[in-house]
């Protein structure tokens, strides 16, 4: 069997047998794959650092029907500073969880992987004005890329662009105050600043958004909305998001 060589980000790890781990790796060339990393829970393994979650590494592996077997791996970036701040780590873990939930095994998405790497780079390096903006931008771009781009220009019911004040999960986008009565399901209140932020998440590149200043209270509301919307679209909700919310005041 021919070896495969590709770069990828470890998005999940599970202990396996005594010394091994099963890794879920989102790779550039092969998409979301599962690999067994042998002996990596032993001190002497040379693969230790490159097979932890958040590790972006070059992997060489034997492909298999369900599991590949890792033969070699070289660490490219560990996003090490994420470990120094539990809130950052919880947010970054959420992004990995989204990636895990949004794609099937062997499904490819090199563009979203690239976006995620940029987000992790900015987050771990403390290069964004507000990490919640990075999260919101990733949520929006991911869900749009998956084919569920929300309507953010006109009311999804009457097509008017006046008095937009709500986001309707079930209508896949914004609605006006006048149509509120006609809709069922979950509604999120939007003020003009929040609407603009949602639109900019779609329009602007991440390297521009990282410099955006915003109140964390509003950003959290947008993150909540988008997480709910993603869960509705892909049919899976993220446990890591719920965890991050409890993390905001853990021992209090």
């Amino acid at each position, binding site marked *: 069997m021919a070896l495969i060589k590709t770069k990828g980000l470890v998005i999940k790890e599970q202990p396996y047998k005594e010394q091994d781990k099963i890794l879920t790796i989102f790779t550039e060339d092969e998409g979301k794959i599962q690999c067994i990393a042998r002996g990596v829970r032993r001190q002497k393994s040379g693969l230790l650092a490159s097979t932890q979650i*958040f590790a972006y590494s070059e992997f060489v592996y034997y492909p298999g029907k369900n599991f590949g077997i890792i033969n070699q791996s070289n660490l490219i970036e560990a996003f090490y500073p994420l470990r120094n701040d539990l809130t950052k780590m919880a947010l970054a873990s959420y992004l990995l969880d989204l990636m895990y939930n949004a794609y099937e095994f062997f499904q490819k998405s090199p563009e979203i992987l690239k976006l995620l790497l940029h987000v992790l780079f900015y987050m771990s390096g403390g290069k964004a004005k507000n990490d919640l903006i990075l999260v919101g931008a990733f949520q929006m771009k991911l869900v749009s890329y998956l084919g569920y781009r929300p309507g953010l220009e006109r009311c999804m019911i009457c097509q008017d662009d006046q008095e937009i004040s709500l986001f309707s999960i079930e209508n896949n986008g914004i609605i006006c105050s006048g149509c509120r009565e006609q809709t069922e399901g979950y509604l999120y209140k939007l003020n003009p600043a929040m609407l603009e932020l949602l639109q900019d998440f779609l329009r602007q590149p991440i390297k521009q958004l990282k410099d955006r200043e915003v109140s964390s209270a509003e950003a959290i509301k947008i993150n909540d909305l988008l997480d709910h919307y993603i869960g509705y679209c892909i049919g899976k909700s993220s446990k890591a998001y719920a965890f991050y919310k409890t993390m905001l005041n853990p021992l209090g």
Partner: protein
Amino acid sequence: MGYYPKTLERLVLELGKLPGIGEKSAQRLAFHIINLSDEEISSLSEALISAKAKIVLCQKCFTITDKEICDICENPKRDQETICVVQNSRDIFAIEKTREYNGLYHVLHGAISPLDGIGPQDIKARELLLRIGESDIKEVIMATNATVEGEATAMYLGNLISPLGVKVTRLAKGIPIGADLEYTDEITLIKAFEGRNEI
């Protein structure tokens, strides 16, 4: 496995559930066990049952013990001003074997892991903070694993403990004994340089 008597089959099955025991080893152990004398068998089964029944967590450090307070916590010769924080009781046995450390321990029973939904409230973190608040601790050594979760846990607890006026240290990371420098990953090398000692 149909060619074994049912009772032996069950024994093989149970032994095979133990970590590191494959089917072959389970069979070998099972045959060994059925050839033991009656006394040896009752001693073995009594050991299994009493270990499970009597092992509890130390009320101070939360390591496994068969007393209310473990031997280490009870020993007045141990340095009462230093706590070494570990993830599991097994880590204590590893450190004790080195005979390098003479302080107390605190077992967290895990590490914070957002992806596994394990938060500070799910490990013995609050208990550690209470313990530090109640006693005259001068130094807390974070000896959690050098994994993403272990590092994040150490950093998180360190940030809560430092404001209490207690020195917080982290075990230095270095090159494993017997490891080839060439094959040591970059992070370990950087950390080893940071933690280098004069010789």
